């Protein structure tokens, strides 16, 4: 038995090393697995939240674009109402007055009435042929959401398409645990990239919303101008109906002619064309309907 004594430390050392190694392996393996699982969970949560925020903002942009479209359509209707209402009424009065009192009109006034009348006739000819006149006047605004989707190019930012595993194809349990931990880290990389892309895109979409709101202000401004001009024309027509003296009638006719011409010029301006820069900056697209028929 004595001859075995020198082996004791060797056996002890062998057991201790084995235990230490297996302990380290187990600890590292368990630690890596837990870390990987936590990272996967955090990454998934972060990515999901980011995409939810993105969808929410996209829906706000959609709503804002719809509001602009509705405003444009209402404005188009308002233009048509003005054309068919106060402007047509005014032109009829001017023509009637010209036919009855041609000699009383100032030099050139008869020609201006004639020109305006022809201009109006051309408009109504086209209008009668075109049932989609509102679109022609207001233009159809397409939602810019497709463009917004395209601009959220997550692949361009490297959010997807991660390369294969960094580690080789060893199948040891520890290596699998490490691979899992590395996978968790990669998931966090991807989540961070998605979150970054979404954060930036949300800011860009906020700008689109701001620009849409300002486009609506511009439409509201146009609507206000039309209303005020319509009111002034109505007052002048009322005054004309009451004017007894020919000099007062002549003055009213001149004023009505000037107002009618301005009204028609204002109606003919298309806000979408005038504010092309704004639409471009907002990433909005609009189609020009029957532009060839535009007055």
């Amino acid at each position: 038995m004595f001859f075995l004594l020198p082996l004791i430390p060797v056996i002890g050392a062998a057991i201790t090393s084995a235990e230490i190694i297996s302990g380290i392996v187990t600890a590292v393996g368990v630690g890596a697995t837990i870390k990987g699982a936590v990272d996967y969970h955090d990454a998934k949560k972060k990515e999901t939240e980011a995409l939810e925020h993105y969808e929410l903002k996209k829906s706000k942009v959609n709503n804002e674009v719809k509001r602009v479209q509705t405003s444009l359509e209402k404005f188009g209707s308002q233009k048509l109402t003005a054309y068919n209402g106060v402007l047509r009424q005014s032109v009829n009065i001017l023509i009637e007055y010209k036919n009855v009192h041609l000699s009383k009109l100032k030099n050139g006034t008869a020609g201006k009435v004639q020109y305006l009348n022809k201009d109006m006739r051309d408009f109504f000819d086209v209008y009668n042929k075109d049932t989609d006149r509102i679109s022609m006047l207001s233009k159809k605004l397409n939602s810019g959401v497709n463009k917004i989707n395209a601009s959220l190019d997550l692949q361009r930012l490297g959010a997807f398409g991660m390369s294969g595993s960094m580690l080789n194809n060893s199948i040891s349990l520890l290596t699998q645990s490490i691979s899992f931990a590395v996978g968790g880290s990669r998931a966090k990389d991807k989540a961070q990239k998605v979150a970054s892309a979404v954060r930036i895109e949300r800011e860009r979409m906020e700008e689109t919303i701001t620009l849409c709101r300002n486009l609506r202000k511009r439409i509201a401004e146009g609507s206000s101008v039309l209303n005020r001009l319509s009111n002034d024309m109505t007052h002048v027509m009322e005054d004309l109906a009451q004017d007894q003296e020919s000099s007062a009638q002549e003055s009213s006719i001149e004023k009505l002619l000037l107002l009618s011409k301005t009204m028609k010029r204002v109606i003919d301006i298309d806000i979408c064309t005038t504010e092309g820069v704004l639409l471009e900056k907002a990433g909005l697209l609009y189609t020009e309907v029957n532009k060839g028929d535009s007055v």
Partner: protein
Amino acid sequence: MINDEVNSGMVLPLDESIDQNVFSLLKEVSACYEYYQKGESERTALACRTEAVVSLLQNRRKILIDFMNNKYGERKQLYSGYFQLLEKALETGNDQVVEVALESIYRLYSDSAFEGIDIVCEQYDKIDKVIKI
């Protein structure tokens, strides 16, 4: 007895193969740690760059809002002035002033409310391009 245990796998043999296995495992753990640290640094850097771009975009939007508010304020005042002038001229029957007021209203209406906005955007786009994500 030891040999039995070694053979049965209960005790790892203290030979060269153990050293190699341990070394290999430690190497993997070390590579994993390095990768993890690198990933952490990259994520932090990306977060910083994102915040920088977001901050630029927010400033740009603020400038756009201020620009537009000023523009609309100016236009509102001008419209108000022109319409007052028009209404007075219509009352007094001054056709020439009516013509001038209407022409001014038309010009204001036909001018883009966003004229100059592209210059503002352009300046910010230049800065935006400097910070790449």
